[in-house]
């Protein structure tokens, strides 16, 4: 890819890359630096980039993701500190337990958003990352797996755990609102 074309196309995704960096780092200054480094590294390899149908965006995500992992390793000076990125059992898709089955007609999703934001903030970076690529960027499991360079089962597992954590965080709200969980036998009685 020519330099001018790269700049044009890559900068179109600046917001998305920044969003990912922010979710990973949780610090605006660190996120900005991660984004900048991502673009410079991408530029270096722009000529070797091959269009394969996914466009340039997943490629930028992958660079940002890898840079973040490298940083965390460096900061921790112990590779195990980010072991979760690599150690998750790729065959595991997470427990197959049901999420809360609330009476959806009663749930005020606008009101949920603030509580949801706080719950998302409490997630680990890798869970936030998967959640972002899934919920905001609208990527398929396979696409997320490609970006994170991890098995699809790991992606499904992370998404499941993240969603379960969010659902749990919303549990007090459900009770406050008196919404019935059809899985909760005690409440049915």
């Amino acid at each position, binding site marked *: 890819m020519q330099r001018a074309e790269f700049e044009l196309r890559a900068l179109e995704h600046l917001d998305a890359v920044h969003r990912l960096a922010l979710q990973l780092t949780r610090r605006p200054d660190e996120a900005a630096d991660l984004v900048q480094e991502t673009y410079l590294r991408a530029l270096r390899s722009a000529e070797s980039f091959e269009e394969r*149908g996914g466009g340039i965006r997943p490629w930028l995500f*992958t660079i940002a993701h890898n840079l973040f992992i490298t940083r965390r390793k*460096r900061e921790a000076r112990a590779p195990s500190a980010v072991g979760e990125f690599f150690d998750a059992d790729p065959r595991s898709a997470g427990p197959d337990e049901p999420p809360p089955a609330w009476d*959806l007609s009663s749930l005020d999703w606008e009101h949920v958003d603030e509580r949801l934001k706080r719950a998302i903030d409490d997630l680990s970076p890798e869970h936030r990352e998967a959640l972002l690529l899934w919920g905001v960027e609208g990527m398929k499991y396979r696409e997320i797996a490609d970006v994170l360079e991890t098995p699809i089962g790991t992606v499904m597992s992370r998404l499941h755990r993240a969603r379960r954590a969010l659902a749990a965080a919303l549990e007090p709200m459900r009770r406050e609102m008196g919404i019935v969980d059809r899985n909760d036998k005690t409440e049915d009685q």
Partner: protein
Amino acid sequence: MTERRHNPIDDAALGREALLRAAADGELSAARAAEAGADADGAARIAFERSLRDAVGRSMQGNGAPAELRARIEAALRAEPEALPIPMPEAPRGGSARRAGGVIGWLNANRSLAALLAIAVSLGLFMFWRQGQPTASERIAMDVMAQSLIKEGERFTAFGERFEKQVPYKGRAAAEGAMETVLGEAVPVYDLSSLHYQVAGLAPCSLSWPGQSGQLIYHADEGTGWLTLIMNRVPVAEAASPVPEKWVSVLRSGNEELPPVYLWRKGDVVFYLVAPDEWEGRRALKLFDAPGSLRRFDPDLAWAKSYSGGR
């Protein structure tokens, strides 16, 4: 990056809940998704998951990249070196491996600097013997030049080790204090935390260095980690070999695992630069207004006095 795939996932091994989530996420075929959501409970779960996804999307959407960041990146992209005679090295796999080591990494690399220089000298010697019979004076000239470079490498290494021992980097003031302790003189230290890619404003020739020779150490410790460039300059009369003014000589080991040493001349001053890797070195050279052309250092050429830009 593998090819993008849109095929539905293999749902045969999925349990009921995972199947419903996959259906909500559009990961199943239309028929399979319809089947999963056929009963009221399944349909409610799918609706819930989709609502949750929408809410997650709203919560994580953010406000976009700040305008200042966009401007900075555009400026950084513009400042990137254009194609140089030597192809730009590939980015390290999985991030900035060499810079990731920071000062420690730099030190580790520089412990091998003498070895790097020895390799270069050995190569020069090999070329020398292969090409012909040197006179005694020519042999001495090459040896002096090689010894000079080795000495420079050793000095850098020793300096880096002492510096690291005395002061883990704790900001500019601490670094400057340590520099004075180690070197016995005040030497400017520049914290590039907010100027990672804008070193141009610190062009060394515009600074007043103590003495006729001097070193500059540039540190950046913002996000991507340490960036250490060690630079030295000497009067041209003290250079042991002819140094061309038209290009920068790059001294590298064959496997490029060791840090590069750059050598060039501007007027009566000879510059040495040790960078963590070739990428950082290239960027620094551009910002330091070094000659735009790079050539692999070849002691044999220097010995044969074939530098077109020599004195």
